[in-house]
Every structure is written in structure tokens, then in C-alpha cells.
């Protein structure tokens, strides 16, 4: 069901009422469920967080796409963002490494701290930020170069390797971590666009790992992959959680359940609930979360 069509906001903005043209047989009518702005149920905060995000708001021109969200992301945790399409989860994710910068009309408000540094501070350098906060996209986007050059791209532009042998080592390590080494070690010079979709996505992960980021953002990394490739990527995410902080946006609730420690549920730009993943999927606190995970809408 398309949320954009079926849901319209109530005229009165202060009272954040959500209405829907839900089928009459639905037990809970969503227009009765209220989301209080800036109020998130569950455990949104952590001690000594990697990311400390407070009162974040994102505007596209006049539209407010993200409404007063506060959240902590702990070190070395895997947190997944779920919610119906258009709920703002990808927009929020892209704030974390300022990928929204390239959109002219996009403005971000609030406090976004990475290790106590304001990432939207005017002096903060986005190149340095992105070297620390890597990203993997929905569609595999390998560069039309060789496999080796794809992985070596990041280290090269950042000058991370002084010698060819260093670079070789980085490439091999990254490909090993991405579980791709054995598949491609004999054809590192082959062009990356010739690989299968799953391999391409793991290559993109290897490419992101190669610059040794502290955080990896994943924007629906498996939505373009088949189930076997998806399983491999998910396995990879679990392994990586030892070294990296991982934020993953996903459409698949099963995936969120399988890979993440905590799960955050977004709804129309609000962060409705954040909780331990098991809790979200067994006994959600908020009615909206419940109706979403039980599949009443989405």
C-alpha cells in the first residue's frame, strides 16, 4: 500500500494526528494512533555513544522530512532503521555522513555529534568525515574499473598507502573481510561491472572497508540482491560488527531481526520507537510499531 497516497496529515499541525484510508476491517485504525513529536519510546540513548544525535530536523525546501529526532548510536553496535517507504529513514541515514549536502534544497538542523565533534560544524571537513563514516548503497555501484582499482580507490585518494605492497595488502585484507577474496583473487584485473550483483555489493563493502572507516552506513544494501547473495551480505555484517559501528536501513524486517542489536522504527519523519531488536519484534511498545511489524500496513 502506498503510504503517500493513503495517508494525509491532519490540518492541525500541533496535534500530530495521522489518518489513513485503511480497510474498515482493520482492528486498530491508525488515525487513532498518536505520535508525539520529539517523543520516542524505548531506549534511544546510550552511554558513551559513537553518534550523539539531538533534535535533528531535515527540510527539503519547505517540507520537513525529519521531525525532531534524538538518538544515540553506540560503539560497535549494529542498529537498523525500519519503517514504511517515505518515512525518512534513508534521509536520516544520509545525514550521518552528510551525503545530503549535494542536494541544494536540503537543510539539516539540530546537533549531530560523532565522537563529540559536530559533524555539521562549518569547520568540519566532509572529506574527513566520509573517510571515517563509509557508506554502502542500495544498488551496487562499482566503478567501471578493475576489481583491484575499485578497492584501491579510497586508499589512493586518501594517500593511505605509501608503497604498492601496502596497497596490495589493503586490497587483499578488504576483500578478505568482505568474503570476496577467494572468489576474485585470480581476476583482480577483471572489470568490476562483470561480476554478479551479490559480488558487486560485497565489492562495494570491501571498497568502503578499505579506507578503515569507524562507521559504515548501509542503505538497503540487499534490496537488489537474490536470497543467497543476501545471506552472504548479512553474514558479513555480523562479522563486521566486531570492528565497526554499522547503521543499516532495511525494508526487510527479517533482516533487521537477523543482523541488528537495536532496531529503530520511523514513521512519517518521526522516530517512533527504538529498542532491543528482540523486544521490537516480540513486544513492541508503540502501537504503530506493532501494527507495522504485524504487517497491517507497510
Amino acid at each position, binding site marked *: 500500500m502506498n503510504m503517500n497516497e493513503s495517508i494525509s496529515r491532519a490540518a492541525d499541525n500541533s496535534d500530530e494526528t495521522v489518518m489513513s484510508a485503511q480497510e474498515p476491517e482493520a482492528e486498530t485504525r491508525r488515525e487513532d494512533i498518536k505520535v508525539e513529536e520529539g517523543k520516542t519510546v524505548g531506549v534511544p540513548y546510550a552511554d558513551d555513544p559513537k553518534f550523539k544525535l539531538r533534535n535533528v530536523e531535515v527540510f527539503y525546501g519547505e517540507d520537513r522530512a525529519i521531525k525532531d529526532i534524538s538518538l544515540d548510536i553506540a560503539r560497535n553496535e549494529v542498529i537498523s532503521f525500519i519503517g514504511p517507504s517515505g518515512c525518512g529513514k534513508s534521509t536520516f541515514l544520509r545525514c550521518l*555522513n552528510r*551525503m545530503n549536502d*549535494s542536494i*541544494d534544497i536540503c537543510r539539516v538542523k539540530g546537533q549531530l555529534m560523532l565522537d563529540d565533534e559536530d559533524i555539521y560544524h562549518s569547520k568540519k571537513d566532509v*572529506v*574527513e*568525515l*566520509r*573517510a571515517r563514516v*563509509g*557508506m554502502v*548503497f542500495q*544498488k551496487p*555501484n*562499482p*566503478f*567501471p*574499473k578493475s576489481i583491484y582499482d575499485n578497492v584501491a*580507490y*579510497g586508499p589512493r*585518494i*586518501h594517500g593511505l598507502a605509501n608503497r604498492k605492497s601496502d596497497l596490495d595488502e589493503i586490497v587483499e585484507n578488504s576483500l578478505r573481510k568482505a568474503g570476496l577474496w577467494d572468489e576474485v583473487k585470480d581476476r583482480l584485473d577483471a572489470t568490476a561491472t562483470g561480476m554478479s550483483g551479490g559480488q558487486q555489493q560485497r565489492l*562495494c563493502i570491501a*571498497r*568502503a572497508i578499505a*579506507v578503515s572507516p569507524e562507521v559504515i552506513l548501509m542503505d538497503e544494501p540487499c534490496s537488489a540482491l537474490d536470497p543467497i547473495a543476501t545471506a552472504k551480505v548479512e553474514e558479513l555484517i555480523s562479522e563486521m560488527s566486531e570492528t565497526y559501528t554499522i547503521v543499516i536501513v532495511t525494508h526487510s524486517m527479517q533482516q533487521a531481526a537477523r543482523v541488528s542489536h537495536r532496531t529503530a522504527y520511523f514513521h512519517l519523519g518521526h522516530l517512533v520507537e527504538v529498542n532491543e531488536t528482540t523486544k521490537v519484534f516480540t513486544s513492541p511498545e508503540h502501537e504503530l510499531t506493532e501494527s507495522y511489524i504485524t504487517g497491517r500496513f507497510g
Partner: protein
Amino acid sequence: MQTANLLPLVLVLAVVAYGLAFMRSRAVAAPLGGIRNLKALPFYYAARAALWSAIPALVVLAAWAGFEGKVIQGIVIASLPQDVWPESAGQASLILSQISNVAAGKLNPDFVPEHIAGAAGLLETLREQSRTFKAILVLLIAVLGAAFAWSRVAPHINARESVERTLRRIFFVCAAVAVLTTVGIVFSVIFETVRFFGRVPITEFLFGTSWSPQTALRADQVGSDGAFGMIPLFTGTLLISAIALLVAVPVGLLSAIYLSEYATKRVRATVKPLMEMLAGVPTVVYGFFAALTVAPFIRDLAEMIGLEASSQSALAAGLVMGVMIIPFVSSLSDDVINAVPQTLRDGSLALGATQSETMKNVIFPAALPGIIGGILLAASRAIGETMIVVMAAGLAANLTANPLDSVTTVTVQIATLLVGDQEFDSAKTLSAFALGMMLFVVTLLLNVIALKIVRKYREQYD
């Protein structure tokens, strides 16, 4: 009757046919209970009558008008006494112009040989007859076509289908004109080229290093027998085109990159149309600019730093030609760069690459095939450009790579050899067609290759 008068007359007849057929179809329909009992609307019966009246008549008119001149000339020449038959096409055209001048009253018949005066009389009669027959035939066909269509106004005949079929055929013919044009180009250069190679060996033309097509007026003139080696023209063309591309490719490419990656919307909205204005300026204006402003400027500048420059230097023509093709390169590059998917940009930026690193390492390599295709198209445009070089480059076929020297190009030679009075049949005139053939073949090859590359590139990202 003149062709110019026949044309409107045929159209009037077609309109009359339309009206008559329209009325008749209504008359036929009336006893049947209205036009709903006809297979087609009255409009279609009427349109069919108009088409059948006009089209065959116009085709005959066009064919007659196209060939009557040649046929009459042939008959007139053939009527001349055997001993004055022209030996060459050049002589024939001379005699013919004499005859037609007498016929037109510009030349007193008493001052010309008797056979010319007689031929002039014949020419006049033939023209008169041709005019009469043409008018009768064309009008007859128009009336007959209309009458036939009029007789075929019947309720069981579907005139709409026939009108639509005819229209579709007309549309097809219009589309096929493109093919006819190509065929026309090929044939118009190929015949003369073959005749040229009958006089000048093809190897001399292709590999000769000296070009001086002036056939001698006096025996002691330099190059009196005419030299037809196209190498100096070829190198001259290459030199000027290379200078042009050296200007246009970096400037066009870099401005396209800046406009698509860095510029704000407002800047883009002002700069782009301004750049496109460069493409809209007629080439004769660039030629004027090159010949009267840039060339003297370069000569003076070179003199100032102690170099010797021709006042028709290749550099001047090349620089201005480069400016002319800047918008061409930049708009093609713009298309190609924008065709690179946003995901590749995001992928690179997310790794912490700066915009210029993304551009140089990811987007540019990905767009390279398309850019090369665009450069080839620009090269073909530079090679075929005529006015700038006609006005600003020289006529002397120097074999040199010095941009301050004067060189000549293939197009310059074609234009100079064919402007003004030509000696028909001389190797000099024919050589222009051989050069035209070379030009056509080279630009065609460049275009075909470039379009192939660009298309392949587009498919890659579609």
C-alpha cells in the same frame, strides 16, 4: 505557359475537383438517406479527387520542367552542321550560351554565324512547343485524374482508405528524400571524380606533395602543367583542425564539467544560453572576425616577439574555428557527463573523495568513450568547415606544420576552384569534386564511428 503559372493552375484545378467531388458525394448519399450510408465521409471523396488530380499532374510537371532544358539543348546541338559540332563540354556550353543570347535578343543575329542564328530560331521554336505541350499534358492529366475520382464517388467505395494510403505513401517519399539526397551527393561527386582520375592518376592525387591546380596560361609559368597532390591540403586541414580542437576540447570539456558539477542553477541558466550563442553565430561572421581581427593581431604579436607570421596564419583560422566548436564540444560533453549515473558519484563521494577527485577518477573515465565520440564529431565539423578558412586561411598549398605559416585546406580549394566561371571539363574543376569526395568520405567515416561510440556508451548506462 510558364512552369510558375502552371503550378497554381494545377492547384486551382485540384480545389475545383475537391468541390465537385464533395457535392457529388452528397448528391449520391441523399437518396440513400444521408451521408451515414456512404463508406466514407464526403471529405474523403473530395480529398481523393483533389489528390488524384494534383499529384500525377505535378509529378509530370516537375519531370518535364527538370529535363526540358537539357533535352532541348541536346536537340539544338544535334541540329548544328556536323563540322561545327562541339568537341568538348566547355565548347558546347559556349555555343549554347551564344545561341540562347541570340534567342533572347541580347545578341544581334546578324553578327553571328548562320548556323548559330538558325539554331537560335530552332531553340525558340522548341521552347515554344515544349511550353505548349507541357501545359496541355499537365492540365489534361489533372482533369482526367479529377474526372476519374469523380466517377468513383460511390457509396460502396471506401475513399478514406485510399486517401490515407496515398498520404502514407507521400510521407514515405518525404522520408526517403534523405536517402535520395545521400545518393545525389554520392553520384554528384563520384562521376566527376572518376573523370578526374582518368586524367590525374589516383596515386598522384593521394600521395603527391604538391598542389597547384592552375593550368597554365603561359608555358613558362611555374607549375604550368598543374599539380594535383592532395597531401599539402590534407596536412593543412589537419593543422587547422588540430589547433581548433586544442582550443575547443579543453575549454568545452572543462566548462561542461564546471557547469554540470559546480555551478549553481542561476549561473547555469545564464552561462549555457550564452555559450549556445557561440554556436548560433554564422560561420561567415567567424570568418570575418578571423580574417580582419585575429589574423592581423597574431601577425603583429608574432612580430613583436621576433617571429615571422603570415597574415593568413593557420593559427588565426584554427583559433577562431576552435571558438566556434566550443559549444559543440561542451553540449556533447554535458550530455555524456550527465548520463553517468548519480550512484557512481555518490559511491565516490561517500568514500571521502573530493568533487574533483570524483570527476577525474570516476566520472571522466566512465564518460570517456562518449567524450571521444563527441570529439570525433567536433573534428568532423572542423574538417568540413568552409567559411572561416576561405576567409582567413590562404590559398598557397604549403606543406608545413608551423601554425604561423599560411596553409590551405580541402574546403578552401573546393570553394575557390568552383566559384566564378569554371572551365568545364578541365582537371582543375574536376579536382574540386575529387576533393569533395575525399571530404565526404572522411567526414562520413568520422560521423559513423562517433555515432556508434556514443550510442554504445548510452546503452551502457540506460
